[in-house]
């Protein structure tokens, strides 16, 4: 072999080894295990739970503006502006806060507060009557939505980790900013996972303003027909075994989910399951201040309500000052207490979620799909290879080698890139095999044509490759273009198809054209001038 050819052959062998390494690594523990360590199988092949969930990000906007209403009231008061009402008038526009009734003499002061740095997230508009509207800026809303989504992902990840699922995948999904994909290989029952993820466990402690009342109507009557703007009506049993009642609570909480440092299931002195919690230092200080000014022995005794997912679980009078340790009893079962403490530990979801898709593939079904898919692919490939040998004789070997090498490189690519092989991915492999063979057929038919036209063997080979190359280039680029677009705009399975297809076609450009050519050249070099080619 000439020097040039030796270098090319060495190059090909090098490439081959690199890509074999890509999907085998340093083999140990059997061929199958080695491959499975390097090639990710999709859940449709491996079995497991696939969930797509939607985060109701708008809720985060509502709760942020709720807090800002209270903050703004306090700030206005601090600035000496009394008599203004701050509130949200339109439930359909949770991003808008309306300030009205500012005394004309205080308008300038009010503007100072509203346009100050503390409310930089809002666009402020003031009309001639002195009423101001604060609307959260679109950029701030987008930020908040993204933050809500990211926090949700973190929270869900922690919860799943604590369930002990191995290799879970939790990531953003789709084109919007409110969908999350959760993939849990090996999990069979989605119900538990869904429950643990979905429980918002939004826990908060609020001061009780009034109640309990029997119904909303009663509560309204007792408060002269209107609920004070800083308060809200909440339902719940208030303690284990009691019927549903209504309380009037302060809207803003004293302590909320994010203030918890730890929570553990425990039992009270009567042996009933409860939750023992620890607050962060900062929240502990705050809570101490609140409980000491409102304890039984103080001048303003009060009681507090523990809200869980917007239901009153427990109402207790404040016996004494509490700093950072406390217990929640609320008629829990043992499982509930333990689930709830898990959720409190990992933090509440910043917004509620709902499920868009749930797919579960049993491991046996996935295994059957792989087995049958592989059998079919191998049978198909063998049939193709045998045909090529019979039809093109010696040149058939080129094609068969190119085909095998193509598959090796494709698998290696997938291993290196960490791409996932899915059922539609197998479709991509089939199309790759089809186009790989096609490239060789194109070349061989072209060579035969040139030979028929009386060209000498080396010229025929050279011309055959040159002519077929244009076609191969066009067909491959067209398909790669379309696969790239599919990858960009498609969802999971369509992407799986696109990935294998692109890798396969790139490999094919190398194997069907370059490798095949090198083999031809090596054969021609050894032959006498004018010898015929087995094709």
């Amino acid at each position, binding site marked *: 072999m000439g020097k040039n050819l030796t270098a090319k052959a060495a190059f090909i062998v090098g490439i081959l080894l690199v890509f074999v390494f890509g999907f085998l690594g340093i083999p140990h523990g059997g061929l199958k295990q080695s491959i499975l360590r390097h090639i990710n199988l999709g859940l449709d092949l491996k079995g497991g739970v696939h969930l797509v969930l939607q985060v109701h990000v708008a809720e985060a906007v509502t709760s942020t503006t709720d807090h800002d209403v209270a903050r703004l009231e306090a700030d206005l008061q601090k600035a000496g502006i009394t008599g203004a009402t701050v509130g949200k008038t339109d439930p359909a526009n949770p991003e808008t806060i309306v300030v009205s009734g500012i005394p004309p003499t205080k308008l300038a002061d009010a503007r100072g507060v509203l346009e100050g740095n503390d409310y930089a997230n809002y666009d402020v508009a003031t009309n001639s009557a002195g009423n101001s509207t604060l609307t959260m800026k679109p950029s701030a809303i987008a930020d908040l939505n993204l933050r809500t989504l990211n926090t949700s992902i973190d929270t869900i990840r922690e919860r799943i980790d604590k369930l002990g699922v191995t290799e879970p995948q939790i990531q953003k999904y789709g084109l919007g900013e409110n969908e999350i994909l959760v993939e849990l290989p090996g999990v069979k029952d989605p119900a538990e996972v869904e429950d643990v993820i979905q429980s918002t466990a939004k826990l908060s402690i609020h001061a009780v303003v009034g109640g309990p009342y029997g119904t909303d109507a009663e509560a309204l009557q007792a408060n002269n027909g209107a609920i004070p703007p800083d308060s809200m009506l909440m339902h719940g049993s208030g303690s284990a075994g009691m019927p549903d009642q209504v309380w009037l609570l302060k809207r803003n909480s004293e302590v909320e989910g994010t203030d918890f440092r730890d929570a553990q299931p425990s039992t009270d002195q009567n042996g009933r399951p409860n939750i023992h919690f620890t607050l962060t230092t900062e929240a502990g200080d705050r809570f101490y201040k609140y409980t000491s000014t409102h304890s039984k022995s103080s001048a303003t005794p009060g009681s507090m309500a523990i809200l869980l997912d917007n239901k009153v679980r427990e109402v207790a009078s404040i016996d004494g000052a509490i700093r950072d340790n406390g217990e929640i009893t609320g008629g829990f079962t043992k499982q509930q207490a333990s689930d709830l403490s898990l959720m409190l530990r990992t933090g509440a979801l910043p917004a509620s979620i709902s499920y868009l898709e749930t797919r579960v593939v049993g491991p046996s079904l996935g295994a059957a799909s792989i087995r049958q898919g592989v059998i079919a692919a191998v049978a198909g490939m063998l049939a193709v290879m045998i045909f090529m040998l019979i039809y093109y004789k010696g040149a058939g070997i080129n094609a068969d080698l190119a085909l095998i090498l193509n598959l090796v490189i494709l698998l290696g690519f997938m291993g290196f890139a960490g791409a996932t092989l899915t059922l539609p991915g197998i479709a991509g492999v089939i199309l790759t095999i089809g186009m790989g063979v096609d490239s060789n057929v194109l070349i061989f038919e072209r060579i035969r044509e040139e030979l028929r036209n009386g060209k000498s063997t080396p010229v025929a080979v050279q011309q055959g490759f040159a002519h077929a190359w244009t076609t191969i280039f066009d067909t491959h680029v067209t398909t790669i273009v379309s696969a790239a677009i599919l990858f960009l*705009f498609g969802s999971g399975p369509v992407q799986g198809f696109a990935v294998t297809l692109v890798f396969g076609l790139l490999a094919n450009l190398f194997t069907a054209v370059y490798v095949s050519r090198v083999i031809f050249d090596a054969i021609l070099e050894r032959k006498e001038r004018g010898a015929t080619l087995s094709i």
Partner: protein
Amino acid sequence: MELFHNPNIDWLGKKWYFLGFSLVFSIAGILSMAFWHHVPLGVDFKGGTQIRVDFTQMPNEEHVRHAMDQAGVRDFTIQRVSDPSGHAANKVIISLPESTATDTAHDAGREAVEHALSANYHDSAFTIEQVQIVGPTAGKQLQEQAIEATLYSLLGMLIYLWFRFELIYGVAAVAAVFHDTLITIGAFSLTNKEITLTVIAAILTLIGYSMNDTIVVFDRIRENLALSRREPLGDLVNRSINQTLSRTVISSGLTFMTVLCLYLFGGEVLNGFSFALVVGILIGTYSSIAVAAPMLVAYQEWRAKRGKTAVLPAAKRART
């Protein structure tokens, strides 16, 4: 060994037969989509709940039905699973319509079915192999996304072909691929097979494949145009198709063989998928000869009639 020795078939002379053939199949599919089975979308796109149950023994369909009725499961359908050879498996697919999978009460349907099964069978008598619950919004989204992705990728191909050949080549190739997709989806409607996400992958495969086939023929036309400018376009196209005929038959035949293996040995999970490929390869090969190439000629004749200069002989020369 050689399949064809200098074939000399007048493909364009048969264009009315081809047109008839294409029309019959397209119209049959369209009629079925409009009036008969419609487009049989699977749970992926339609939304709803689908539960695949594997029984240890051949289940009695009536018994399963009764169990569901008793548990108050409404509007369900039970479908027996069988592989392509028609051999029945111990499996059924229980489907519930979209209304049971609202975004809020997502898996009420699944719970009801599982409850009904465990109340009427021993837990060891069945395993739940697969559950798919797709909420209505997700289904619609997937549907839109699949269609959008396909259309964009067709547009991408069109632009590439425009750039490499001429616009009419791109239009003809995309029209041929569209023809294939229409007939394949029509075949799904006629046989009432469900279109799932994997079937979409198969349709994408066939689009890629058919496009590949068409480009091979077009490339040869372009090459011949550069060599002989005097030959009537019809003859030249015929000659080009004949020159690439061996390749077309071998390549398609081999791919068809692979796909047939998948259809026969791939098991029933891949059934819809491989069915689409079997139909698609046949129709895709046919269309590159019978739809795409005649369109080029028809276009040129139409331009000639309007007294415009032919655009095809000016096709860009192959350059890579």
